[in-house]
Each structure stands twice: as C-alpha cells, then as structure tokens.
C-alpha cells in the first residue's frame, strides 16, 4: 500500500447515485479510507467550495473522480478545473463515461426540453413565459448569473482528456472498491483504458447457455418483460427478451439478469467497441431467426442507446 493519496470527487450532471455507490463500499471503505486524503467532494459529501478547488495548485491531487455528464456550463467548467488539478482523472459511471440516461435527452432539442419544462406540462403556471437565462437583473440592479444550458448532453471525455473509464449506473460498489484498490496499488492499465474486466455480462451470467453445455440458438420471437415472467434458468436473449448482456461489460456480476431483468447496457461497451448501440445492432439483429422479427423491437434508438447516446458516433438525434 502506498502512503496516503489525495482524492477529489466531482459530481457533474448526474443524480448522485455514483456518490452513493462509493459510500456503499461500507466495510471496504474502512480498508480504503486510511489511504485517502479527500481534498474535495462536491457538491454532495464534503463542505468544500468550487473556489477551494480552483485555488489548489495544478496537478496537486493524485486522483480525481468525476461522475455525471455535462449539460451545464458550470459542469464543464468544474470538470476542466478537476482535470487541471488532478494527475489522474477517472470517469466514474455511465453518465461520465458515456452520457448515461440523461443523454437520452439528445433525442430532443433544447427548445423542446424548455417547452416541456417551462410551458407544456399541466402543472406549469408560467404566464410570463419565463425561461432560464444566463444573466438577469433583479430589482433593476442585482445582476445574477446562471450557468448556460447546453444544446446537448456530453460525456466528460468530450470536454477533457480522461485517463480511465468505468461503467455502471451506478457502478457496483464492490467494483468501485476494486477500482480504488487498483489505483492505490498502482496496478493501472495504460491511460484511456476502462478500469474494468473487459468481459461481457454473459461471461459472468449464470443463464449463459454455454455454461450449461448448451448451444445458443437463433432468436425465434421477441418478447417484453411486461408480457410475462421469464424462465429463471434460460438465457433472456435466447428467450426473446432483448438483453444487451452480450454487448455490455459485466463488472456488475450480471445482477439484473439474475433477477429476471434483461441487461440494458449500463456497464458500457466492451473496450474497443466504437459505438455501443451499433454493436448491439450488429450482434443481435443477425441473431434473429428471421428478418421480420427485428421490426418487433420497440424504439431501437432508445433501447440500444439508453446509457450511451451522447457517445454514439452520431451523438444523438440529428436535428
């Protein structure tokens, strides 16, 4: 074990689920904490201000974790500050690495989103038609500023260079622990890598037909979980539930398939894959027993890009 390392944690545009996953380390946290000197954890855990981080010398922090994606100017700014201050920067979780669920907003324009949020919903009462502005004058004299709401959601790699990526929504706590241990022990792969096993969910999934000595077959029908109870023993994909386990990294230990929920891809693509959704298309469509079946897959863009739309080749819906 090395001596104490300095750690900073920034939550960019996420839901704080990743923060929870770190906290959930529970006992592992006890092993890790003594080695950590947490200098910044905002806005959730520690009472440290942005300006405090800005004031720290560049490259003074050994390890920075950023969770969440970039939607606001503030998030971009702070991520850039993190990059300057940290020697190594890790994108923690699906949002930071791929854009995550908030990234599905890239199917819509900023205008659509504002219209929905500030005008169209039944509960909205906005007769003056006020929408967020980056600057406004209160009482005619106090100038207030708000961060800009960008046109698109982006993963943090779109604004800074990221040394390591991890998937998961949120990342499984045991996996977070393992990643931290790897950092502490200096067992790090070359920068740009995923701090993951690199293997698919199928590799660890007990439903994998191969583990039972069975051959995989072509998919003969398409089903949805709402339509019935999947057989606990059988491979979900084989049964027609569109499970993305084969295309997704399995550091989660196949928890979702374990409880009858098809994998939705939060673990991110297998390293080397250019585009998660397209790989899913390449793999799964070919496995359909006939060409009509693929038409039964509902809204492929939202299914295959649930966690990765902003990092897809096209970046989101072309508008």
């Amino acid at each position, binding site marked *: 074990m090395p001596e104490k390392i300095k750690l900073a944690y920034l939550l960019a545009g996420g839901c704080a689920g990743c923060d929870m996953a770190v906290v959930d380390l529970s006992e592992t946290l006890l092993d890790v904490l003594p080695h950590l000197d947490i200098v910044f954890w905002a806005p959730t855990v520690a009472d440290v201000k942005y300006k405090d981080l800005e004031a720290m010398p560049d490259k003074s922090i050994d390890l920075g974790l950023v969770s969440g994606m970039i939607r606001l100017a503030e998030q971009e700014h702070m991520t850039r500050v993190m990059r300057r201050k940290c020697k190594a920067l890790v994108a923690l979780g699906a949002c930071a690495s791929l854009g995550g669920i908030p990234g599905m907003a890239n199917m819509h324009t900023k205008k659509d989103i504002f219209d929905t949020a500030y005008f169209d919903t039944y509960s909205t009462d906005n007769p003056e038609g006020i929408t967020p502005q980056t600057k406004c004058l209160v009482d005619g004299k106090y100038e207030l500023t708000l961060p800009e709401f960008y046109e698109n959601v982006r993963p943090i790699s779109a604004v800074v260079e990221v040394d390591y990526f991890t998937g998961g929504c949120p990342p499984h706590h045991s996996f977070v622990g393992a990643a931290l241990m790897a950092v502490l022990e200096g067992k790090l792969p070359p920068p740009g890598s995923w701090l993951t096993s*690199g*293997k*698919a969910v*199928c*590799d660890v999934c007990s439903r*994998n*037909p*191969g*583990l039972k*000595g069975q*051959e*995989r*077959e*072509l998919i003969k029908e398409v089903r949805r979980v709402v339509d019935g109870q999947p057989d606990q023993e059988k491979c979900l994909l084989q049964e027609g539930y569109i499970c993305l*386990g*084969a*295309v997704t990294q*399995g550091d989660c230990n196949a928890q979702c398939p374990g409880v009858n929920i098809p994998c939705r891809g939060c673990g991110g693509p*297998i390293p*080397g*894959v250019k585009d998660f959704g397209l*790989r*899913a298309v*390449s*793999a*799964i469509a*070919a*496995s359909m027993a006939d060409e009509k079946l693929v038409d039964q897959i509902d809204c492929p863009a939202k299914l295959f890009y649930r966690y990765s739309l902003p990092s897809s080749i096209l970046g989101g819906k072309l508008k």
Partner: protein
Amino acid sequence: MVSKTGVYVCHCGENIAGSVDVAKVVNYSTTLPGVSVSREYLFMCSDPGQELIRKDIEAGIVDRVVVAACTPRTHEPIFRKALEDAGLNQYLFEMANIRDQDSWAHWGDKEGATQKAQRLIASAVAKANLLQPLQQRYVEVEKSTLVVGAGVSGMFAALDLAGMGYKVWLLDRNPSVGGNMAKLDKTFPTNDCSACILTPVMVQVANHPNIELLTYSEVEAVNGSIGNFNVTVRKKQTYIDWDKCTGCGDCVTACLGKTDNEFNEGLDSRKALYIAFPQAVPKRAVLDQDSCINCAGSHIGKEHKINAKSGEPMLAPCEKVCKTGACDRTLAHDSGGESFDINVGTIIVASGYQAMPKEPFKEYSPDSPNVITCMQLERILSATGPTDGEFHRPSDGQKPKTVAFISCVGSRDKNHHVYCSKVCCMYMLKEARLIKEKYPETEVYIFFIDVRTPGKDFEEYYNYCRELGIKIVRGRVGAVDQLPGDGLRVRAYDVDMDTPVTLEADLVALATAMEPSAGLADLGRKLGITCGSEGFLKEVHTKLYPVETSVKGIYIAGCAQGPKDIPESVSQSRAASSAAAVPLTAGRVPVEPFSSSVDQEKCSGCGICVPLCPYSAISREEIDGKVRAGIEIALCAGCGVCAAACPSLAITLQGFTADQIFAQIDALTSVAGGGPID
C-alpha cells in the same frame, strides 16, 4: 512499423488511360501516408509490368503492394504470384479497381474518373498499410467428379474423365441417359441419325468401369468446396428393383395406367409403368405413381387382396408378368426414394435445356392440335416417334400438304427470352428438309426474322434447302387463325414484298426457344453458382474462363450455360472435363487464407457467433472453467458473419478486418474532389 507501400498504376492501354489522368493519379499516390513509391506502366499485368513490382520489392523499397488496374476477380492471382516470386508474402497485396469500376463506367468524365481513381487508390493504400502476411492453405483433392446431367454434353465429359482414370458419377434425373438429343430424328448439318451416333455413346458410359450411373436421381444438397464436395444425391423411387429388372418390357405391356408420354413430347401416351424409350440406358422399368391405377386394388406397400373364390392373392398385371420378381408391390417403398452422400473433388454441370411449350403463344392458336412445337415435329418425324416416322398431323392423322414454320417463338422476345436461341434457324431448316426430301409434294414455308446460319457448313445447308423448294419468307408471323375443319391460316407480313401475306396450312410448327431446364436456378443455388439474367448458369468470363463458375471446382458444359447446338455442346463438355481434371491431377489445391479467427483472451463466451455460422465451424470450448468460442479453420469459408456480429470484437476475418475497412472508409471520405480536404 511504418509500411512501405508501392502503388502501381496501370494504363491498360487506353482502357484506363483514356478516361483517367494516370500521371496525376501517380503523383497523387505519392502523397498518401505509407506510400514509398508510385509508378505507372502501359500493361501492369505484362511481364515487364510485374518486373517493376518485383524489382522494388527486391530492392527493399516496397513491402506492401497496391496495383491500380482492372478487377481483382481476374487479375489478383497474377500479381500475387509476382509478390511471391519477389519473396514477399502474397497477401500483402491490394488492388484498386480503376478500370471495370471506374474508367469504363465513367468514360467521358475524365475529371470524375480521375478523382475516383484517387479515392479508390487511397482506399486500397489505407487497407494495404494494415495488411498482415497470411499463409496459403492447401486441401487434398478427392480424385473423382460428379457430372450432373447425362445428355450428350454430360456423357462426353464423363467419358473423358473416366478415360483419364478418374472415378465419375454421372447423374440424371430421367430414368435413362441420353438427354434431349435422344429425342431428335436427324442432326444438322450432316443429317446423321441422332440415335445412330448417340446410342453407342450411351452404351459406352454404361459400360465404362470408372463411370457409375445415377439415373432417376437428383442433387439434393452440396456442401464443401473444391477438392472435397460432399453431395447428397437422392435416387428417386422407381418401385421396381433395378437389380432384378432386365428391361424385358413385359410389365410395360401389361400395365393399364396411362399418361402423356414425355419422351414423345405429349403427342401420345405411355404406361404408368414404363421404360423411358426403346434405346434407354440403363434399360429399366420405372413405375410412375401419379398415373398408376393400382390394378386389383394392389396398393404399393400393402399385402395383396385375397380372391374370395380361389383364396389366392390377387396380383396386379405387372406383378403377374414379371419373371424376375423385380416388380413386387407389397414391399414398403419409400416414396421419397433413397438419399446417400458422395464425395467428389470437382463437379461438372451439364444439365441441358428444355424446349418451350406452345401454350404461352396464344396468338398462334396453341389450342389447335395442328399447331405443334418443332420438338414435337422432331418426334413425329422420328422412326421411334408416335407415328413411327410417318408424317401425320395430330388432328386427324392426315399427311399435311402445307407446313408452316414460325421462327423465334419465345426467343428475342422480351416477354419470354431476350436471347437468340441460336439453333432454331438450323433445326427448322433441317426439319423442313427432312419433310421436303421425303415428301417433295409438300409445300413448306419458313417464316423468319433473320436467318442465322453461322456455323461450319451451315450456309451450304441453307442454300441446299432453298434449292429443294422450301419457301423462305422474311417476316414474323402475327397470327394463326383456326379455320373451319382442322385448317389454319398463317398471317405474316412479307418484309421483302412489303405486303401482308396469308397462308392456309395444315400444320404449323413453332420453333420455340431453348430455355433453362426446370429447376436450374434451384440447382445453381444448391451449388452456389449463379444464373445469368437469362436464367442459364453463368461462367466466370465469357472469353477466358468459359467453363469455370464463380465456385472453384464447379464447371459448366453444354446448354446449361446457354443455347448451343450439338457440336458446340460437345466441344464445351470436353473443355469442361479438361478443366475439371486439372485439380484432380494436381492432387491438391490452394485455398484462400481468408478465414475468421477468435482471440480467446477477448472472447466473453456469449455464444452469439455459434448459430450464425452456416458451416458449423464455430463451437464452444471450455478454457479454465470459462466458455470460449473456437473456430475450425478447415470448415470456415470466410464469410465474416461471425466477425461482424461478435459483441466483444474477439473475432477477426483475415483479409477483411474491421480496422482495414474503417481505414478504407476514412480514405474514401477524406479525399473529396481530387485532393485531401483541409
């Protein structure tokens, strides 16, 4: 390692240089990443052209080669050989197709064609930079051949190969060998009797120790590739034990079931139990279940009924007369026949043609019995035909006084076949001549579009026919009307007289087109070879590889490839047998190393690839308690379906890796109007 790619741009005489600015392209090539040298030559495939490549390799200037010339489908092997000769792995080679897919297609658009050549070369270079050496593989060749179709083409191909000492399986779906030629009366241009020249050949194939006849059989499935084709053959059910049958014909005489006689083109009937024709080889009887009437309640596979009076079993007439026990209806016969596999090194397809029936040509009153096809007329004229060679018209058996032939029926016709059937002019002349020679008082008219007689001694034949008094009218017949009684009125337009003409005829013979035999497309599909737009099997190259198909080891002969007369069919069948013998003689053949491989370190064992492989080349392997995919290289054909589907990018298709394709995409899109964009 930075590659040193050499780019060699071919002028192909004027073929490329006439439409592509070669000098500009060569200059441009030198600016591409990884390119060490770029050269041009008039004919890159010529020996001096190849020498340029060899010298650069030997001098160490070049370790990857891009040739920008014609299509790799014909010329890749030539250049690969040059690389090999110079000591470079032959798969460090890529072609840019700037002739067939560029200069020819964009002739007249020099700017566009030049820019495209630059893009195609950039794409080839991008791929070449990423090429890896591959090792050529060889497969041992099974020293036998399957010949599909036992007409005159198939029989000669079989005899040639058998004569060289190779085992030949000669398959035909009919009960007898002989094909269409067996139906002909005489053959042009010598007027030999068809049976006289064909029957000895039929006997020869039957007796040859190296030939095994598989008549009344069909190709059910074909697997494998050159050297090792595994063919599933289905021998159709004859319901007669051919080991016991002597072909005496007693059962045929006794049989009471009747149907149209296909050998006589439906002009008369045959029995349900029949021998294909008198000279059939093998001469064996076949029971056609569809027309069998199950005499005496004797159904196939059922015990005989017992005569209530005598207590004896009631035998069907065929069983009663069969002296050898070949005909035993009580046996359980599988109506599907019997399937078995054979292994062969090469395959020749000589499945022939069929003459179109008359029915589609409503304007020629096909409902009249006196409107017949020329193939039917051939049977009427034949001594073995329905009239024993007497010239009778079908409606009333009277000898026709006036006969009209109509050419190009279904040929050169966009509603049927756009091609010229090539042999009709000559066979009409032949049939007309046979009639006129035997019955000089008969008036014979032939209505042509163009008389086409381009063959040895054909024009002389035509002249002789005219001297006999056969009347030739240039002008396609527009209608055949049925007159009261059995007469017919032929209406044409005489182009030379510039006037409409009519002719009252007793018999009208339609020179219907030769068309692909039924099921040819299906057979092609089983073999993996394609049919051309006209429906016949397609050769690799009309001039240079006329008997080769797109599948190595499968060759074509005779009318399966397109309409031909007998001399041409025989020539081509002997060419095919020679081509098919090459791999058999060599004993082993090289196969492309473009197969898929799995990086088991990357494989997650999801198994997605396993059911996708059409060759069952991928299987599950267990490694350290984990499931991983494994590929049997010998079974892999290199389609790349598995590589494209692998979620973990663990499978790579050698020669077409994703990195190489992405590099090509990059190159094609970053070169716009002739130069790199900023």
